[in-house]
C-alpha cells in the first residue's frame, strides 16, 4: 500500500505561547516546532499499516515554511520512506483550505492508496485539511477515525465515535482518513535513525510551482487577525472546611451564586 501521511509542525506542548507584535498570530520566535498530537498518531498508524502489509511505503508530506523540513526528518527517523516539503507562500498563510489545495496539487504526482492525517492539527484545530484534500482529489474521506485496519488490497475498516455512538465503517481505497487514535502510542525514534535522517533527501515543491498550479486559488481567504491569550488562571480559590458536609455546602453555594454554573 502507498501511504501518504500529512504532517504539520506544531509548537511543543510545553511551549509558552505569545502573540506577534502586530497581535495577528502566534510568535514563532523561540518556539520549538515538532511532530506531535494527532499527526504523530497518524505517522504511527502509517508505520503500523506498512509493517502489516509487506511492500508498503510511507511518504510524509508537509506544507508550510522551512520548519517543515525538520518535522519531515522526524517522520523519516521514525520510519517514513520518503518526504516532500511543499513550500508555503513567502508571506506565510494559515488558511487550512489553501494548505489543502497546495497539498492536493503536490499529491497529483505522488502515488497514494491511503492519505492519512490527524483529525485536527494541534495548533489551529480546524479539522478541515483532510476532507478538503479528499474533495480536491475526488476520493472519499473520513474524520475522527480510530481502529483503522486494512481489509485486503482495496479496502479499510475503522471505527468512528460520534455523538450517537460508535460507528463501524467499510471504505474503499483510495481514500483520506483524519485519525483520532492509532493502535498504539507513538513510538520514539532510535538515535542511529535520527542521525541518518539528518542526511536524508527531502523533495521540495517550491511555492512558484504551487502558486502557478493553484492560479486564482493561491490567495488565502482565511486570515488570522488577532491572537489572544487568556489572562493566566490565577490558581484556585481554596475552600476551607472541617467536614465533607461543609465542603459540599460551600462548593455548591459558590457554584450557584458566584460561578453561576449550577444546573
Amino acid at each position, binding site marked *: 500500500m502507498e501511504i501518504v501521511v500529512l504532517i504539520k509542525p506544531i509548537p511543543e*506542548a*510545553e511551549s509558552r*505561547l505569545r502573540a506577534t507584535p502586530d497581535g495577528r*498570530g502566534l510568535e514563532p520566535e523561540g518556539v520549538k516546532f515538532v511532530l506531535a*498530537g494527532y499527526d504523530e498518531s497518524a505517522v504511527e498508524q502509517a508505520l503500523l499499516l506498512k509493517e502489516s502489509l509487506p511492500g508498503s511505503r510511507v511518504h510524509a508530506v508537509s506544507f508550510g515554511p522551512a520548519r517543515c523540513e525538520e518535522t519531515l526528518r522526524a517522520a523519516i527517523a521514525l520510519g517514513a520512506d520518503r518526504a516532500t516539503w511543499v513550500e508555503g507562500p513567502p508571506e506565510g498563510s494559515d488558511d*487550512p*483550505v489553501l494548505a*489543502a489545495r497546495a497539498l492536493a496539487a503536490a499529491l497529483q504526482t505522488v502515488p497514494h492508496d491511503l492519505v492519512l492525517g490527524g483529525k485536527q492539527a494541534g495548533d489551529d*484545530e*480546524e*479539522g*478541515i485539511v483532510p*476532507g*478538503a484534500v*479528499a*474533495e480536491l482529489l*475526488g476520493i*472519499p*474521506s*473520513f*474524520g475522527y477515525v480510530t481502529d483503522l485496519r486494512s481489509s485486503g488490497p482495496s479496502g479499510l475498516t475503522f471505527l468512528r*465515535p*460520534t*455523538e450517537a*455512538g460508535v*460507528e*463501524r*465503517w467499510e*471504505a*474503499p481505497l483510495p481514500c483520506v482518513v483524519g485519525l483520532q*487514535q492509532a493502535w498504539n502510542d507513538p513510538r520514539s525514534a532510535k538515535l542511529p535513525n535520527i542521525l541518518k535522517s539528518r542526511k536524508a533527501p527531502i523533495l521540495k515543491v517550491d511555492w512558484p510551482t504551487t502558486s502557478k498550479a493553484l492560479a486564482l486559488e493561491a490567495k488565502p*481567504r*482565511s486570515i*488570522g*487577525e*488577532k*491572537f*489572544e*491569550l*487568556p489572562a493566566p*488562571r490565577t*490558581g*484556585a*480559590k*481554596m*475552600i476551607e*472546611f472541617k*467536614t*465533607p458536609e461543609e*465542603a*459540599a455546602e460551600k*462548593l*455548591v453555594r*459558590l*457554584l*450557584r451564586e458566584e*460561578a453561576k*454554573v*449550577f*444546573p
Partner: protein
Amino acid sequence: MTPTVLVLAEASGGLLTGPTKEAIGVARTLAGPDGSLAAVTMGGPSALEALAPFGPKEVWVADVPPEAATSGAVAALAAHAADESRAAIVLLGGTTFGRDVTGRLAVRWGAAAATGATEVAIAGPEEVHVRRPVFGGRATEMRRLVGPRTVIALRPHAFAEAAASAGTPTVHVLDRSVIPATEGAARRRSLDPAEPGSGPSLSDATIVVSGGRGMRAAENFHLIEELAQSLGAAVGASRAVTDAGWRPTSFQIGQTGRAVSPQLYIAVGISGAIQHVVGMVSSRTIVAINTDASAPIFKVADYGLVGDALTILPALTREVRKVRGLPAN
C-alpha cells in the same frame, strides 16, 4: 445587505439536535430582518418535519440513509443546496458529522472556512469574522473569512439554542445524482449506540465530572457516576483510569482522548498533567478535588478542595440532590 444563511440541519429521533438549533439561532442573527434563513437536511421527511417549526423560508431535503451519509455525499448535496439558495454563509453544528463535512463543502462550494466558532459576525459585504479557541483552549484567535462564500462549523454550546417559531417552508428535493460515484463504495456497517440512560455524551454535556487515579480503585468509580447523575453531567476520566481498565478509553479526556469545554468541569483525584489539562482547560469553571494541595490541577482550577474524594463525593452528591430537589438516594 440581505444574506441568505443556510443551515445544514441534523435530526435524530424526529427532533433537531441541540447543535443544529444553536446554528439556527446564529443563522437568524446573521440573516437579520432582511435576510433569510434556509436549511438543508439529509434526514428525509422526518427531519423536514422537525425543521419546519424553526422558520426556514426554504428547505432542501435529501433522504440519505445514515449508512451512506459520507462526508463526500453530504458535501455534494449541501453545496448544491447552497448554490440553489444563493446562500452567502453555510452554518454547521459542531458535531462529528458537521465538522467532518466542513472542509469538503468549503472546496466543493468554493468557500472560505473555519470550524469551532464561538462568535460569528458579518464584517462587510464579503467578510465574516469568527472567533475560535485554538491550542486546546490555551488561546483564542479572531479570523477574517473573505470572499462571497463562507462555511462555518460552530463550537457546541457556544450559542443559545433557537426556539421554535412557526412556518411552512417551501420544500425542494435534492437530486442525489450530484453525489460522486466514488462515494458509493463506503458503507457504515453498524452503530453501537451510546449507552442509553447514561446521561449526556461527553461532547454534548454542559457539565463533566471526571475521575482520576485518586479514586483509588474501580469499585469507587460509582461515586463519580452518582455525582454526575445528580448534576445531569457526563462522566470523564484521566488516562490513568482508562489505562487501568476502570473505564473504557471513550471516557478519556486529554491530548490522546477527547477535548471538552463544558460550563463546569469537576476533576476528582486527577493530578493535572499537561496531557490531561489540554483536554479540559477551556472549560468555563473548573473545580478540583485532591488530597495533595500542591497538585498542578489547582493551578488551572477556579475552586479547590483539598481532601479525600472518597468522603467528599458522597456528601457533595447528597448536597446537590438536596439543592436540586431530587430524592435522596
